[in-house]
């Protein structure tokens, strides 16, 4: 992360940084928290509703209904991204739109759409994971680490 590399600031730079911080308009933290809560909660509600529909009318059981639910949420997010609406919603909702899996889908769809001008292979194919890549990389590495820990603590082939 950029913040990790500390740059020694001179006294003048320190003073300037304080001046700049004093002028910086504060982020409306409480307003943003409330909006994120409402938006994120609402998206999860939609997800819950979709899951119930798959269980009651789709013939899926509780455990298996997760897959089609995620697929539908992703599809909805991609459609909203295509319509040019998701980014406007995100300015209002902040993390409420970024944290749900819909944010993940938006990051991929927006990158794919944007880089289509560089061709399907290098543009769409090569840059689709521009923003979602870190999530997949670190998720995989974390899962691997957890797996190793489990192996060492509990032993393989049975708990």
């Amino acid at each position: 992360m950029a913040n990790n590399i500390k740059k020694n600031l001179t006294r003048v730079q320190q003073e300037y940084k304080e001046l700049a911080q004093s002028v910086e308009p504060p982020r409306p933290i409480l307003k943003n928290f409330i909006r994120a809560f409402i938006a994120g909660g609402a998206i999860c509600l939609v997800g819950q509703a979709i899951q119930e529909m798959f269980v009651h009318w789709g013939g899926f059981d509780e455990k298996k209904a997760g897959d089609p639910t995620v697929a539908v949420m992703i599809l909805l997010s991609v459609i909203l991204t295509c319509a040019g609406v998701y980014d406007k919603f995100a300015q209002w909702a902040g993390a409420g739109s970024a944290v749900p899996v819909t944010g993940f889908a938006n990051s991929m769809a927006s990158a794919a759409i944007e880089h289509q001008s560089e061709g399907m292979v290098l543009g769409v194919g090569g840059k689709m994971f521009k923003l979602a890549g870190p999530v997949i990389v670190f998720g995989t590495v974390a899962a691997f680490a957890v797996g190793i820990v489990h192996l060492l603590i509990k032993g393989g082939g049975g708990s």
Partner: protein
Amino acid sequence: MLKGHQSWLFENKPFIRSTATVVGPFEGRGPLAKDFDIVHGESMMGQKSWEKAEKVLIEEAAKLAIENAGLTKEQVQFYIGGDLMNQIISSSFAARTLSIPYIGVFGACSTSMESLALAANLVNSGSAKFVLAGTCSHDSSAEKQFRYPTEYGSQKPPTAQYTVTGAGAAIVSMEGDGPVVTSATIGRVIDMGIKDPFNMGAAMAPAAVDTIEAHVRDLGIEPGYYDLIVTGDLAKVGYEIACKLFKKHNFPIEQTEYSDCGMMIYDYETQMVQAGASGCGCSAVVTYGHLLNRMRRGELKRILVVATGALLSPISFQQGESIPCIAHAVSIEAGREIL
């Protein structure tokens, strides 16, 4: 001729013979819309990509400026231009179309005055008869290159700025009439350790102040010499910081009106631009369109335009570097028949 340490005095007073400004639809909804020559209806401008649309902007501005000067492109000796795109492709590809001997420059958002200063110098020293100076920016191509894909849902903080979709071009020559370029000050790179690319105003303000102070020092004048000193795109946050810095340095900015192009081009009430505007096109279209129109109407006699630029790249930011900035100043005075 050289004046002081880093300034040029243009004793032959080259004219800004003509200007042209071309903007996108968002700028066309702002308070200065009537001052722009061409306002496009959609920001893709019928092209297949944002980058191609940006080329259209600068090509149209360049061609219109040449036309407004009553010239053909074959008569123009040099085209000095730059923009925000990697390898300044917008300007380079426009130069391909124009076929004018080309000097590409990179000053980020300070390019408008950097190119105008160089153009005035070439003409003033007899190194050229007609020089085209121009720059452009496009909000979507800038977002795509520096920040996120345009459809990505990221929440912009209140310090963020909106890149102007616009191009401004000017023809400078000894022949003709119009506002004259009287002097210019080339800025030094100033870096006060600001690292936040969503707070360019704070990064650029010290460079603007440094160049303005150097200008009055080099030329031996007071800020009150000018009716208006305007910075390129400090926007709300940078502007306030600059005012505080002037006070801290006991610089008598109150002798004149001090304003900022980034705060003029959009309507804060109706347009969501957080702190204000930025981009090479910002200072270019506001100066060549709005300010020179005011000058032509006799409302302004002497102005100092100080375009400000942030010289970072996405990689420098990711590698933990802070943001070095620069500001270039050009003084423009009303043509002789108005004075």
